């Protein structure tokens, strides 16, 4: 028996918030009703979305939508602000290892035109700079730098180049030409090792973290680095970062043996996904990250030691482990315990912790606790018969995640182009080596077939019945990969797949998008019946 939890409109959240306030709602300093982001921040799109009704969901949204406030507060307190661009998950780990340092992704401005329903005019500003709609919506970042209205200008700007998407490279170069000095570091194309060439495993090649599977276990082939899977790695704490040291003992929630009657995943699943890179590539990237480390240390005015990096990696891994558990629980539960929209937002937090690493962990733990409670209680936000749908690539318009559910689908797996930010960073390796391997595991750094293999592996793991490969208009990186991934899903799993394009605002295209999604789900349902 499943109890259905209804998602709420913004208007319904107003009443819900009053009801929660009348009870024992404990809110962080950035709390408050969702409505205030529309009223004070101009986040008009919220009025078109449906939200999870939990306090944990509210906290997630408030955390996301107050990042600008946190950055401004950090600036006022004299913290070093690091703009990390493009690498999606690696540089923030280095930056947050320093005291009084906050990292963020200026690239995240790509969601502003959606959230503010283009009232921000960021895309218009980019157009005026000659970076028009033939480019990825990340171009909104240029407008944000020019207006300085959405985040304080960072003290240090770092950007990965090389095996990154062409759009972003062009946009970042335009930013540099605007007078914002950028430290570039190179991420080379991840080529397969030549026969006989020394190579190493990358994160993501082992089965995803499961019960009893210690963090960062090597998948083999790198015997010198391999550790016993039961060997625990203590999180080192350093006294110069008291705020980070609290709870440094591994207090992360342990997955129960059985949650709500659903057996926890076992370790006997093995996926054929040997993600390896030549040793020479790893050494090269480690060298590049050493340059990044030097730049950060110089800007912060203090050394960035290996111990500090280990501590930073350990904290990042706590976030990643929590997220991994949340995803696994949400994707494998018989009834979806959380909406796709909130899960999408939660995944995005892994990139740079939304500018507050400790609070990010608490937000995710809250959400995980709510998901666990619902699964145990047999509660869910969707019909149990909703079609299990794997979603590839992030969406430019968040409304799209609601639309999937309105059409009768349920997200049962995702690949948002930054899986290297979800996998645990190996803690048994020298820190720069570990970060270099993580950076090289970036799905955008390697061939499309590697990415497709992971998508197929995960879609199979979470029993996907259909898949959506979403494209971002103008984003050249997605242009060819979509077909490779879609073909792999059809060939390997025999499930229907649809490719969609989601611009920053989908409203004018909504009828056509609905038709495609509904047709996809109809095709998937048709296969259920003999």
């Amino acid at each position: 028996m499943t109890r259905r939890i209804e998602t709420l409109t913004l208007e319904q959240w107003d009443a819900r918030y009053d009801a929660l306030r009348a009870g024992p709602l404990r809110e962080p300093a950035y709390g408050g009703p969702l409505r205030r982001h529309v009223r004070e921040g101009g986040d008009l799109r919220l009025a078109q979305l449906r939200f999870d009704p939990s306090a944990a969901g509210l906290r997630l949204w408030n955390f996301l939508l107050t990042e600008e406030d946190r950055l401004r507060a950090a600036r006022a307190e004299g913290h070093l602000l690091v703009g990390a661009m493009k690498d999606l998950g690696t540089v923030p780990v280095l930056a947050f290892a320093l005291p009084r340092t906050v990292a963020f992704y200026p690239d995240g401005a790509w969601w502003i035109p959606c959230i503010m329903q283009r009232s921000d005019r960021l895309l218009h500003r980019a157009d005026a700079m000659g970076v028009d709609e033939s480019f990825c919506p990340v171009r909104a970042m240029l407008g944000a730098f020019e207006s300085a209205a959405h985040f304080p200008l960072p003290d240090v700007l770092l950007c990965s180049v090389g095996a990154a998407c062409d759009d972003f490279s062009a946009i970042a170069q335009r930013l540099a030409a605007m007078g914002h000095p950028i430290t570039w570091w190179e991420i080379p194309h991840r080529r397969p090792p030549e026969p006989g060439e020394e190579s190493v495993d990358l994160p993501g090649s082992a089965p995803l973290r499961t019960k009893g599977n210690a963090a960062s276990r090597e998948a083999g082939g790198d015997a010198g680095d391999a550790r016993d899977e039961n060997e625990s790695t203590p999180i080192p704490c350093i006294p110069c970062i008291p705020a980070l040291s609290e709870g440094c003992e591994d207090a992360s929630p342990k997955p129960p043996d059985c949650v709500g009657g659903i057996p926890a995943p076992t370790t006997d699943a093995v996926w054929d996904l040997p993600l390896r890179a030549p040793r020479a590539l790893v050494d090269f990237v480690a060298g590049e990250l050493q340059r990044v480390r030097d730049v950060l240390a110089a800007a912060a005015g203090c050394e960035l030691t290996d111990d500090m990096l280990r501590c930073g990696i350990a904290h990042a891994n706590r976030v990643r482990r929590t997220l991994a558990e949340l995803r696994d629980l949400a994707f494998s539960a018989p009834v979806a315990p959380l909406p796709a929209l909130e899960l999408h937002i939660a995944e995005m937090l892994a990139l740079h912790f939304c500018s507050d690493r400790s609070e990010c962990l608490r937000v995710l733990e809250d959400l995980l606790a709510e998901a666990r409670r619902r699964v145990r209680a047999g509660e869910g936000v969707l019909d149990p018969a909703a079609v299990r749908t794997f979603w590839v690539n992030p969406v430019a318009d968040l409304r799209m995640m609601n639309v999937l559910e309105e059409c009768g689908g349920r997200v049962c797996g995702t690949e948002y182009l930054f899986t290297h930010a979800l996998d645990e960073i190996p803690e048994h390796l020298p820190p720069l080596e570990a970060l270099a391997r993580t950076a090289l595991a970036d799905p955008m750094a390697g061939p499309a077939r590697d990415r497709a293999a992971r998508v197929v592996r995960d879609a199979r793991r979470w029993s996907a019945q259909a898949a959506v490969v979403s494209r971002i208009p103008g984003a050249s990186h997605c242009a060819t990969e979509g077909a490779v991934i879609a073909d792999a899903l059809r060939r390997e799993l025999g499930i229907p797949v649809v490719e969609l394009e989601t611009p920053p605002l989908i409203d004018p295209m909504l009828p056509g998008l609905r038709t495609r999604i509904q047709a996809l789900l109809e095709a998937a349902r048709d296969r259920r019946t003999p």
Partner: protein
Amino acid sequence: MITAGIDAGSRSTKIVLLDPAARTVLAAGAVDQGVHPERIAGELLDGLLAGIGRSRADIARTVATGYARNTVPADTTITEITCHARGVHAVCPAARTVIEIGGQDSKLLRLEPEGRVRDFAMNDRCAAGTGRFLEMVAQRLGVGLADLGPLAAASASPAAISSMCVVFAETEIIGLLASGAKGEDIVAGVLDAVASRVVTMAGRRVDEPVAFTGGVARIAGMAAALSTALGLPVTIVPTPEMTGALGAAILAEGKERG
């Protein structure tokens, strides 16, 4: 028992009334779409029912499909992709690939042997490769839609239409006319361009046999252009503009049976 399928498309509304037990189409009709799809569909439905001496009370179940499916009176809505697949399978059971070109979009469906949709691709982002595009061409050349096929057949040297954006293509057509290109060569070039656009959706593999449906299948020359672009024979299904409504009526019977 009667089941009804209503295909409320962007250019026209089509209705099929089916006697599922006898596997017989009792009545079928189409009218131009307008700003009040519900009224248009209702009037067409009542007219068809009156023609066979029945009333709405005799309809066991109605399935609506097409762009305006949510605005017309029906028990259930099902997408045109599923409905076209089922409609084509009913009249052309061997078909494994279906090309459907309607007024506002074009689709390519791959079918399982039993007629289920295995996969599909759809272009609804721009009017290029759709009936609307061909209407623009006919209008610009001052001919009727029905004249496009015969005109194209008379072409000895199809013009090269490089742009598949309907707006830019119109500019190209104006330029071609100004430079003295023959109307038949322009039309032949447009049909080739539309076919090429549709075939692009097919990707690397097209399973045979290929069936062609939708209102644009009525335009002579279009199937030949598709066949040339695919390098495969293309069969126009009977009454191609009605297959969506037929599929809807068939699916209505399935829903009725539970």
